[in-house]
């Protein structure tokens, strides 16, 4: 069963490898919205997200020959979008992980129970999180990467990823509770 998942859209991928524009467009149609949303969550602005997603698709189609079904096409593409988004943030010198000293005032015994869980409030809360916190919440909760993968993506230690995530989550709950 698992191997079947890896070969999702195999025909389209194979035809795209040989440069068939029609198949490439069909893959684009299938994944554009998901990829656009990922990039929007990472970057926050429409223009940046569009640029990054366009670049990612171009790079993906150009390097499709190196895709060997070790993952699904979707997660391969997603990783390109994530990496490009992170690089874009680095270029804009936006902090990927927040500096620890700014966060010392958050007491460890802060309330990490949510009063009422509400998706709209959570969405708003994620948007107003500091950049570094937002990235790690996105990567862990929404994109579904584990701490090992996040450490690779962000170039940080696994333990850093874990501690940053816990702080980010605490901060998010704080924000959500005040909304």
């Amino acid at each position: 069963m698992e191997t079947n998942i890896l070969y999702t859209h195999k025909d389209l991928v194979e035809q795209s490898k040989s440069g068939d524009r029609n198949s490439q467009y069909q893959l684009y149609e299938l994944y554009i919205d998901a990829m656009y949303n990922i990039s929007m969550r990472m970057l926050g602005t429409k223009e940046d997200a569009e640029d990054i997603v366009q670049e990612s698709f171009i790079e993906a189609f150009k390097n499709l020959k190196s895709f060997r079904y070790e993952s699904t096409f979707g997660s391969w593409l997603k990783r390109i979008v994530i990496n490009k988004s992170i690089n874009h943030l680095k270029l804009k010198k936006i902090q990927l992980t927040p500096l620890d000293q700014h966060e010392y005032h958050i007491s460890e015994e802060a309330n990490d129970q949510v009063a009422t869980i509400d998706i709209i409030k959570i969405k708003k809360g994620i948007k107003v999180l500091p950049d570094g916190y937002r990235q790690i919440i996105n990567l862990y909760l929404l994109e579904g990467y584990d701490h090992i993968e996040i450490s690779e993506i962000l170039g940080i230690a696994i333990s850093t990823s874990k501690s940053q995530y816990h702080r980010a989550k605490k901060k998010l709950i704080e924000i959500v509770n005040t909304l």
Partner: protein
Amino acid sequence: MDDFEKYIKENKHQFDEYKADRSKMWSHIESGLETPKTIPLWRKFPLLKIAASILILIGAFSTVNFFITSGFNANNQNNIVHQELKDIDNYYKDLVSFQVQLVKNNPKLQPKDKKEFLSFMDELDEEYETLKLEMTKNLNNEYILEAIVNNYKKRIELIENLLKQINDSKKSNNNDGYIL
């Protein structure tokens, strides 16, 4: 994993709230795939668009002109090649038909052998006709030319073999087959 995390993970799809501008983004991707890393200049300078179209018109005009004037030369060259091929073709055709005639008129041959030989020849003839038809479509095809040559070679070989047989039975040294 606590309830908060679980809740978010279960409602992940609700975070996909944006719709991509599909056609606009695809046109960028498509142009990116066709001409890597070129910035369309006319975006910056609209006048260039007009200049470019004038250039294209001039270019098209001069190529058409070039073809019209050089068309005769090319035709001449093609004619020469055609003529040469025709000469070679005629030479072999005469040779083969002459030998076929010889075989037909040879009284020493068994009618059965004759018939077999001629049927072989007919088969090769048919193959030859299709090859020739193919060649009029594209003159420069090396494979077809080679196949035609092979076709002739086979015929000559066949005739040679046959004549050799006759000669062996006649024990005579005086035969036209040695022309080859």
